[in-house]
């Protein structure tokens, strides 16, 4: 059971995630951002619902698309803008761009492009928790496309053999770049693979933040209690192109319309209004707060200095 405080917090996080990404998109379209963007619009319920199940000390391995999940695990949004702007004082000091950053002090890994590298890496993190007898949990995200990769299989199998405290989230957003589910797998749900590892699993409505959060919380707490790994598939929809430059005209209009109706924030807002957890004044206040925070972070980042070319090979080694 999710209490009202948590419900509100989930709302706050989802809307902050969207506000951050909306701002990034607008900067991108104005040509002010450097490099690529990979937006998770439409996936906020999963991005937030799962990662919000983590506690301090737990780790999160996001992919390129899981910026919003990083917010749920406590990333300071300044880092996000600083990295997209390639700034000297950003989390990668301009060494990497877009969502390829994190915050090691908060257990948010720096993701790399190769999918789904965060899966085997997270099994290793979970192994370290187990070896050190620390009651911590590793959570790894990936898209349904990445489940076709061999490394995905290796991670699940090893996690199951060692009963590691790791939670694997698959965000099935219907596309891997331009490729629809049918070119990626023959099964209805990726969780059809869980029995192949004798692993607990759940398939959830990825647009229902409460459902995702409950499933993830159960999995995280089971992992923390020594109950081993879980595979969770959240069904949702990628509402924008693969990256900022991709108009995604391979996505049928009707599909987008259908899922626009199921927008995870709209539905959730209504629910919280109905449940009197939220009211219009609070909504406006939260929006205001996000807007101010996002504008401040974006402005600061844009004004911040770029790194100097002379340091190009600094920091290759520790």
């Amino acid at each position, binding site marked *: 059971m999710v209490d009202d405080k948590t419900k509100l917090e989930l709302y706050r996080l989802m809307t902050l995630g969207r506000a951050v990404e909306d701002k990034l998109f607008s900067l991108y379209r104005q040509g002010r951002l450097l*490099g690529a963007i990979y937006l998770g619009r439409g996936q906020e319920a999963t991005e937030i619902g799962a990662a919000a199940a983590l506690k301090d000390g737990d780790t999160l391995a996001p992919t390129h698309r899981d910026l919003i999940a990083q917010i749920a695990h406590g990333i300071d949004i300044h880092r996000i803008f600083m990295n997209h702007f390639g700034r000297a004082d950003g989390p990668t000091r301009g*060494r990497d*761009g877009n969502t390829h950053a994190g915050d090691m002090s908060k257990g948010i890994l720096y993701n*790399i*492009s190769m999918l789904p590298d965060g899966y085997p890496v997270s099994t290793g993190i979970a192994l370290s928790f187990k070896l050190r007898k620390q009651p911590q949990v590793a959570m790894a995200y990936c898209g349904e496309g990445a489940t*076709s990769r*061999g490394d995905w299989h290796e991670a699940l199998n090893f996690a199951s053999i060692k009963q590691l405290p790791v939670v694997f989230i698959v965000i099935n957003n219907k596309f891997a770049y331009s490729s629809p589910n049918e*070119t990626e*797998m023959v099964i209805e749900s990726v969780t059809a693979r869980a029995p192949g590892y004798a692993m607990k699993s759940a398939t959830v409505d990825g647009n229902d933040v409460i459902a995702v959060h409950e499933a993830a919380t159960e999995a995280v707490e089971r992992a923390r209690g020594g109950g081993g790994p879980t595979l969770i598939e959240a069904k949702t929809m990628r509402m924008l192109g693969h990256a900022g430059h991709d108009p995604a005209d391979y996505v049928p209009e009707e599909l987008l319309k259908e899922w626009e109706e199921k927008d995870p924030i709209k539905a959730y807002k209504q629910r919280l209004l109905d449940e009197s957890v939220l009211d219009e004044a609070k909504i406006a206040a939260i929006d205001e707060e996000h807007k101010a925070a996002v504008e401040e972070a974006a402005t600061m980042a844009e004004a911040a200095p770029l790194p100097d070319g002379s340091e*190009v090979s600094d920091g290759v080694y520790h």
Partner: protein
Amino acid sequence: MASTTNEEVTFLDAINQALREELDRDQDVFILGEDVAGYGGAFKVTKGLLDDYGPERVIDMPLAEAAIFGSAIGAALMGMRPVAEAQYADFLACGFDYIVNEAAKYHYRSGHPVPVVFRAPSGAGVRGGPFHSASPEAWFAHVPGLKVVVPGTPTDAKGLLKSAIRDDNPVVFLEHKYLYRHEKEVLPEGEYTIPLGKAEIKRQGTDLSIVTYGAMLRRSLDAADKLAERGHSVEVIDLRTIYPWDSEMILESVEKTSRALLVQEDVRTLGIMSEVGAVIADEGFESLDAPVGRVTAPDSPVPFSPPLEDAFIPSVERIVEAAEKTLAF
């Protein structure tokens, strides 16, 4: 998309033409990779091919490099001529084993041909960061059994890709992504191929031999222009094929000029110019009147932020400066 007009054709379209002509010529040629069909590939290199050749010749693959490269090899062993695409050259590392162990060694062990091409967009300069800017040619040039090609012009890209597809050996074909839309040329009329393993003198000169390839070709030519203004006659040789590379032409040129400068975008340690330098230091030693200079990226990952990436990639100025040092020796 005919190749007989007088219009300039981009590097990217030249590759598309090569694929089309080979798909037309030989029913055994087919294309496989992520998002290569309907989407036409991440860079649109295969755009239009699905419409014209159908889903059996242009195959969308799951996000699975072992399946892509392994399947391509399997089909090649049966006599087909698959052209497998990695979405970025960086992802060649994800199916590395198939290229370096399965494909590269099959012929040595069995005598059986393995006519497969592994195509991928490589190189820096587009703010791609550490995982979308790889120049992996040196890894593969170190693997006997593979051929490695990195063209620097649209004409070469087309002619070399056609040769790669017709070659009975596995070929790693790297397309510098910065060139895709930055280089244009009127292509030779009609059907042509360019042989693998042959370098080309892109500019004649007598005082210094610059050896380079890929995106550094243009910068080296620009540097040669500047040096010409200062009275230096610089020869610029484009390796084109990274393995087997044309040591003969390079040694001849150095014999003529007595000075060599080696330019690569790749990191310094063990890029292909290390090999070129070592061979000149051995077989060309007696011709040399100056140290063999190298202009390269530093030994670091490819950084994302513009000032860093710009400092990473060798500039025309750095080439000119190094050349003047070598010329002044």
